[in-house]
């Protein structure tokens, strides 16, 4: 039953991130929306590997037998890769926003009209 709540939370997080990406004009708020969206996707991926009363996928002895009680390690590894990609994207976007603020003195995306004219 707990997985239903987790999936609903993932849907809510992705919806909030999409709204922030579409509606907000501030570029920093857009980056925050992207972070919330990515967190929702991570929650969705992690909940696929959920198992009731599961334990961490770490083998304790050489003759360890309880392999069936462990959770799925594959989504955790994929999310671990995804987090670092998110970090690089966020850092690059923030540096570009700093340069935009230096040149145009604004971070409002509606005031950046140099390209249109």
């Amino acid at each position, binding site marked *: 039953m707990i997985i239903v709540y987790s999936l609903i939370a993932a849907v809510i997080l992705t919806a909030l991130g999409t709204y922030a990406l579409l509606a907000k004009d501030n570029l920093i708020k857009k980056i925050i929306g992207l972070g919330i969206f990515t967190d929702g996707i991570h929650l969705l991926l992690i909940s696929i590997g959920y198992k009731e009363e599961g334990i961490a996928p*770490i083998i304790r002895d*050489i003759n360890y037998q309880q392999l069936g009680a462990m959770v799925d390690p594959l989504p955790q590894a994929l999310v671990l890769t995804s987090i*670092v990609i998110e970090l690089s994207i966020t*850092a690059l976007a923030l*540096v570009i926003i*700093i340069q935009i603020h230096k040149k145009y003195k604004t971070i409002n995306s509606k005031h950046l009209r140099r390209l249109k004219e």
Partner: protein
Amino acid sequence: MDTTKHQGGIHQIIINSKKTNKAKTKNRLDNMDLIIKTITRVMFPFIILFGAYTALHGHLTPGGGFPAGATIATAFTLLVLTFRESEVEGRFPEIKLIDIKSIASIALLAIILFEFALRDIIIQYQIPMTVWSGGDTLFANIFGSIIVATGIIIIIYSLIKEEWKQ
């Protein structure tokens, strides 16, 4: 005469302290509080130690290359936020960090590309369930943690440098 001089001295000390207080509030980023500086100095090696533990035991306990690198970078972030960025960069210069990152990247590339051959050779000489185990993943953890730590430190240097110019 003596008492007036004394009072004047105290008065001047108070004025001077007010002046220094004003100077402190003007650029607060340059002069952090004494408590923050001391705690940072004490905590820095322990955070590095915990990051090294996370990297070296990544194949036995929860952890691994990425969390270890993030932990080490957190210690440097604390250092950069507390002291002046120029002082920190004098001891850990950016160009040397890029050198370390490049060397670790080449080592990781070699490890991963020849993993199928190296793995079976290394495992024969290792003892399972100890620190000296894990085949290639032990070395990959170490080099991966170095790559992630130097990368995050370079990103933080760049962001903070931009902030202080204005």
